[in-house]
């Protein structure tokens, strides 16, 4: 037992403790910042410039959305000697004068930390960390102007953070006129560096913001005076997100104990009904019975063990899913518009999954896939990751979204995937995860954790757009086969006929009967791709004739093929294996077959079509049935 004692050992311990206590002092905010630069997003010069812009833009979009205003955001980056001058101005609802100093110059001050609702910012570190960074690197205050409406005057502040107390220091506070109806303008100077070309730049960040916020107009004025405007693609505001109560599934013991202690409810049953979503009178009673607790007990009196029993009851009882209207998806139409607006592409597929739950938090996944056009066909597919409409630019490799993309077998969907991982080809993938609580891997909010429920939903969304891509491409192939035929008939055939006639010194032969036959044929084509020592084979069969065609396709191979899709009947013949598919195609219909062989075994003979006359079939030998 510890207790008062006069032993020499005890007094020695007391002495040391007192000494330690004298050395202890509050860690100042500045020190905290210095030690945690990387988790706050100020670890490199380009990123230090990006982070405050990102926080200010996020705040502006959140504020506009809450008040139903179409956002119009102006970002200006200027060079001032070694330093950068950053301006972010929005047409949002403005901030009331009393709140301005705390919003900008007090860390961890925010309106959203305690609210369960989908929003961009969550912790309230964001913009004030920018103010602090500016002040630490330049010693200068941040200027803020804000105006809440046409009838009001604007307030102008010069603010710094008192790094010892984490309280705002107001250097100037003036009431003045401002020609904007409402809005907020932040201006600061800081150290950093401006890059444009790479993925993690202010330019790409704003471009990505514009893709998932097609209702916003964003203007960027760059240090060289160049002005980029990302125009809005729609006047329609996204569906507003609502605040919800926590869902009991996935709640942890510590969280529950805290809620029990601080609740204003006097009875356990009304605490359960009033604090959580998806719990009504009946469920509340059921929970109390399961946990063997009196439903009239004051919640604050519950012991540790009783709280534990309650948690167990949460897991046993059947609960409704959390309400889903707290989430605001971008919507398939707007994703399409957003991608179309920023990239010139041939094809966009989108998919919106229905709402799911992880650890009591509702979430929703949206996926977009752009293909062709100006997208480069060599190299890996570009990935745009978004969490609650905020672009994620860093730590792509560590993100659950990326892992989901890597888990999908893209070859099935006509994209190559050398060595597994991110596929290659002229495509771009967009994934948006919306949730009341995005499980980030760290405070800097760069990557989403590998939560199995989320990864699996993302995969399902990717497969959905993959299927749409495959359908689109096979339609394209059929079209290009038709174009090919037209080229043969228009340019090549007449020239061949002419040359032959010329050499023989005869009349030019009539090419029309041949043309008719070429135009209406059953086209069989084999394509090979070498990947990881495997030869991946696709056979395309297209029926350009005027009637339905049923036939058997033979592929003779030196060994049994793998990943045969659709599956084939295999008949060993001598040392070889005949792979058989029975195929019926309506006029104009096309089908794709695929399989794989080890590259060194990839030896092919002609494909054989059984059951069609030879002059109908192009690209394969024919045999009689």
């Amino acid at each position: 037992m510890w207790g008062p004692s006069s032993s020499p050992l005890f007094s020695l311990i007391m002495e040391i403790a007192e000494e330690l206590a004298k050395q202890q002092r509050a860690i100042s905010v500045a020190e905290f910042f210095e030690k945690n630069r990387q988790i706050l997003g100020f670890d490199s010069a380009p990123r230090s410039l990006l982070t405050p812009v990102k926080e200010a833009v996020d705040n502006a979009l959140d504020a506009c959305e809450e008040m139903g205003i179409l956002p119009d955001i102006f970002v200006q980056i200027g060079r001032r000697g070694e330093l950068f001058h950053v301006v972010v101005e929005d047409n949002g609802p403005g901030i009331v004068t009393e709140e301005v100093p705390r919003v900008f110059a007090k860390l961890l001050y925010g309106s959203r930390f305690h609210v369960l609702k989908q929003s961009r910012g969550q912790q309230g570190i964001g913009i004030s960390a920018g103010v602090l960074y500016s002040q630490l690197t330049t010693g200068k205050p941040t200027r803020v102007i804000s105006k809440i409406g046409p009838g009001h005057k604007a307030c102008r502040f010069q603010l710094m953070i008192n790094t010892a107390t984490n309280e705002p220091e107001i250097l100037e506070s003036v009431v003045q006129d401002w020609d904007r109806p409402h809005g907020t303008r932040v201006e600061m100077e800081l150290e950093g560096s401006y890059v444009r070309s790479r993925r993690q730049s202010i330019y790409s960040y704003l471009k990505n913001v514009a893709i998932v916020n097609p209702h916003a107009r964003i203007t960027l004025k760059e240090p060289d005076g160049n002005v980029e405007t990302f125009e809005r693609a729609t006047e329609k505001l996204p569906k507003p997100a609502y605040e919800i109560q926590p869902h009991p599934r996935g709640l942890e013991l510590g969280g529950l104990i805290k809620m029990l202690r601080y609740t204003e409810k006097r009875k356990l049953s009304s605490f359960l009904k009033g604090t959580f979503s998806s719990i009504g009178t009946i469920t509340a009673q059921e929970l109390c019975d399961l946990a063997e607790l009196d439903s009239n007990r004051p919640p604050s009196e519950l012991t540790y063990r009783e709280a534990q029993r309650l948690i167990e009851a949460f897991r046993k009882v059947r609960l409704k899913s959390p309400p889903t209207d707290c989430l605001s998806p971008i919507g398939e139409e707007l994703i399409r518009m957003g991608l179309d607006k920023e990239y010139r592409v041939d094809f966009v597929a989108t998919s919106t999954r229905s709402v799911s739950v992880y650890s009591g938090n509702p979430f929703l996944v949206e996926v977009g896939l752009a293909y062709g056009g100006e997208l480069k066909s060599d190299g890996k597919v570009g990935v745009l990751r978004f969490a609650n409409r905020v672009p994620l630019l860093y730590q792509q490799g560590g993100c659950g979204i990326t892992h989901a993309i890597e888990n999908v077998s893209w070859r099935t969907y006509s994209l190559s995937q050398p060595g597994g991982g991110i596929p290659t080809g002229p495509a771009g993938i967009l994934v948006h995860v919306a949730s009341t609580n995005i499980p980030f891997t760290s405070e800097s909010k760069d990557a989403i954790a590998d939560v199995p429920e989320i990864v699996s939903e993302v995969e399902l969304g990717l497969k959905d757009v993959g299927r749409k891509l495959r359908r689109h491409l096979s339609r394209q192939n059929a079209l290009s086969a038709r174009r090919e035929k037209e080229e043969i008939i228009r340019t090549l055939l007449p020239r061949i006929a002419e040359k032959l006639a010329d050499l023989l010194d005869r009349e030019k032969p009539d090419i029309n009967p041949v043309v008719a036959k070429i135009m209406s044929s059953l086209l069989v084509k084999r394509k090979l791709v070498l990947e990881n020592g495997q030869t991946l084979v696709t056979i395309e069969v297209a029926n350009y004739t005027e009637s339905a065609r049923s036939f058997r396709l033979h592929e003779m191979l030196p060994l049994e093929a793998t990943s045969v899709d659709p599956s084939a009947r295999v008949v060993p013949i001598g040392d070889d294996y005949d792979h058989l598919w029975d195929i019926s195609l309506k006029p104009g219909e096309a089908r794709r077959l695929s399989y794989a062989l080890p590259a060194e075994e990839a030896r092919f003979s002609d494909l054989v079509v059984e059951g069609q006359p030879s002059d109908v079939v192009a690209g394969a030998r024919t045999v009689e049935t």
Partner: protein
Amino acid sequence: MSDPEQAQEKLLSMVESLYDQFQEGIVPYLALPSRTKNNIEYDKDGEVWVYGDQKSLRSVKTIRGAKSLLRTSHLVELLIKEHLRHNRGSTLREIYYISENWDLAKFGEQGESDRLVEDLEIVTSLQREDFHVRPEEDGATVFGPLEIREQTRRGMRDIHCQEDVGEAGYQIPFNVDNIQFKDHDARLVLALETGGMYARLIENGFDQEYDVILVHLKGQPARSTRRMIRRLSLELGLPVAVFTDGDPWSYRIFASVAYGSIKSAHLSDYLVTPSAQFLGVQPTDIVDYDLSTDKLTDQDLHALRSELTDPRFETDYWKEQIKLQLDLKKKAEQQAFAGKGLDFVTKEYLPKRLSEMGLI
């Protein structure tokens, strides 16, 4: 060699069959033996490898086929109107450049025009010399106790391939059938892959000491070089040994001398020396002589494995050697013998190996 009239006739009859297909409403096509490893088979009578029955169809139903037929008609026009009617000729490379004027029918690279010339050889059962088409490369060289008479454009020349030539030897002309063998003192023909080994044997006087005709293959041998070896073997009754590096690509050099090449199996009867024997470097030599080696690359391994399924290497000897090399994962150059001293190859290795083979 056939006369220009006959060549022209054969080309025109191919053109005529295409023309008739148009007239009869058949989608025009040319059927050619498919030139793949799968489609070469052993011809017991000629003891050579020739194309089998597999055909590949070149039909205007596809863009590729249509283009290829258009090129064929352009090429036939060139051969008939420019070459045969005016007794002129072009090199393979020149044909590639001439096609610049054929717009749609232009060749993308010289390999395409070379293949098309080979196709015409197959269709007409003639050789490119009959169409007055020459290869670009100069023939390789010969050094040894052999006297020949060559019909040149500037008259007959009698040449002794040791006494009348410089250190590089006698250069084989592109049309080997323009030479006659007058006399020789040779016991054997030794074909060498690399110039380094060829020069080494001349410097060491190996040709004199053992009465050997040395033939420099210069890598994958040109048709004229292979034709020369075949004639030396058949007309003079000399045994032929082939000495190359010890790697899968060199085995293919040997195979093209002894069995014919996949690309020109239609000419096997004319170019191949079925009695040629492989001397080395054998994978067993790598072990027996503890030669310095390089590691086999992935491409080497792939080539070796593919030789296991190549009908030309379908003998116990080759299966054993190739499997041993796959285990060793090593290859050695001819020059590796220099590591044992400059005379080792002529004093030790070759005499031992040639007597093993029963050639000296």
